[in-house]
């Protein structure tokens, strides 16, 4: 039996991963996973979601769109039990939102609780598997941007990293092709090292192997999952 593994590619450049325009600043990585028994289901397996969310929240405050929430009353970020909530702009225009059955004011939740952050992989309104989700990362001491400055839909577009940078984010995570991989971007190499070290520790604790691979080996490892 194969061992379950967390797969990391440090230099993803191929368009096949559907990560949009990758920046010249900061560092990117591609995260993947392989289970001992190949899953028949799409999406991020629960144990992998828990691991990635745990690694992200150990270093960052994670802000993502969340449908399981009470719409906060008032403007700006509002403190709650799960984290800080804010209504932000949909960013796509009212007609487009109506046509696509989307909210004009998505709710963002910024949290450091891993069990809350793991929801970002399984929210049907912002589906990870349809690449309709993105998480912005801030270190604990960094201020959150003004809620009204966040145009949600633009973060799902090609230039997601430049828009995240404009919001002062120190990193971002978004789904790659079919949600089978996660694209990770951070502004500084020290942050990337810290995050990947935490991920490696958590993978080991969960009985997963941790493999850093070239882009081709990464693709091969994902394909081998089905064999």
């Amino acid at each position, binding site marked *: 039996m194969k061992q379950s593994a967390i797969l990391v590619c440090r230099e993803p450049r191929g368009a*096949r*991963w*559907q990560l949009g325009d990758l920046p010249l600043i900061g560092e990117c990585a591609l995260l993947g996973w392989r289970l001992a028994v190949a*899953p*028949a*289901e*799409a*999406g991020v397996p629960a144990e992998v979601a828990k691991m990635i969310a745990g690694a992200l929240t150990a270093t960052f405050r994670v802000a993502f*769109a969340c449908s399981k929430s009470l719409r906060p009353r008032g403007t700006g970020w509002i403190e709650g039990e799960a984290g800080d909530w804010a209504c932000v702009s949909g960013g*796509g225009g009212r007609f487009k939102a109506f046509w*696509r*059955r*989307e909210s004009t004011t*998505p709710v963002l939740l910024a949290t450091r609780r891993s069990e809350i952050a793991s929801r970002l992989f*399984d*929210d*049907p*309104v*912002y*589906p990870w*598997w*349809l*690449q*309709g*989700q993105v998480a912005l990362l801030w270190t604990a001491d960094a201020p959150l941007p003004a809620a009204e400055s966040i145009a949600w*839909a*633009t973060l*799902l*577009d090609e230039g997601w990293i430049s828009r995240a940078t404009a919001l002062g984010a120190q990193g971002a995570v978004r789904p790659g*092709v*079919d949600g*089978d*991989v996660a694209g990770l971007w951070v502004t500084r190499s020290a942050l990337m090292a810290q995050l990947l070290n935490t991920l490696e520790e958590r993978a080991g604790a969960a009985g997963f192997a941790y493999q850093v691979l070239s882009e081709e080996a990464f*693709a*091969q490892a*994902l*394909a081998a*999952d*089905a064999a």
Partner: protein
Amino acid sequence: MSRPVQATQPVHDAPPSGAIPYAIGQASTVRIPIPGTQGLCIELRPRGYVPPGGSTSTLFFQDPSGRRHLRLDYGYNVRTKTIDYHWNQKGTNTHFGIADHTTVGRPGQAAYKAAKYFRYAGRALVVVGVAVDVVSIVLASKPLRRASEVVAGWAGAWAGCKVVGAGGAALGTAATPGLGTAIGGVGGCIIGGIGGYWAASTVAGEVYDWAEDTFFTPLPEVKGP
């Protein structure tokens, strides 16, 4: 040899009807139920946010939230390491027996493209159907009667699509889970929609005529015993 003289008769114009374009087009907008799947329906649009460029999938069997879904997709397939047409699924494997990333052949490609174009063409047909029906109301000698027929026709088309579409989807699933489901469901929806439109508008016309010809005559008042 002289041609026979044909008698000419005045012909009454039948009222224009948007039944056909409306019933065909609505198959792209109505959620067509798939029996025995705990709420999955056939749709041509995803549920939830997608990137501004749109989804790369065109045919969806999904529950109202979109969490459980089977969708026909085109793009990079991590299992085959190629760009191909394939199914993606979550929570539907027990109903269709189709695993995530299962590739499809030429029929699947044809279904993907048909769904892609029908999504827009269907909406255009609905608009054409509604426009023709509205014109028929304006031109009718009895606009109220015609309006009753039209509104009943739309409702009948919707109901017929749901009922016959569900039957078609069930038959299609039994034959070929996935593609058969889509073909049976959409085909049934169109047939049921046309039949439902025709039946409902006919009944509405009859009811209108019956109501119009009904008079209520007051009874003479008599003293009580």
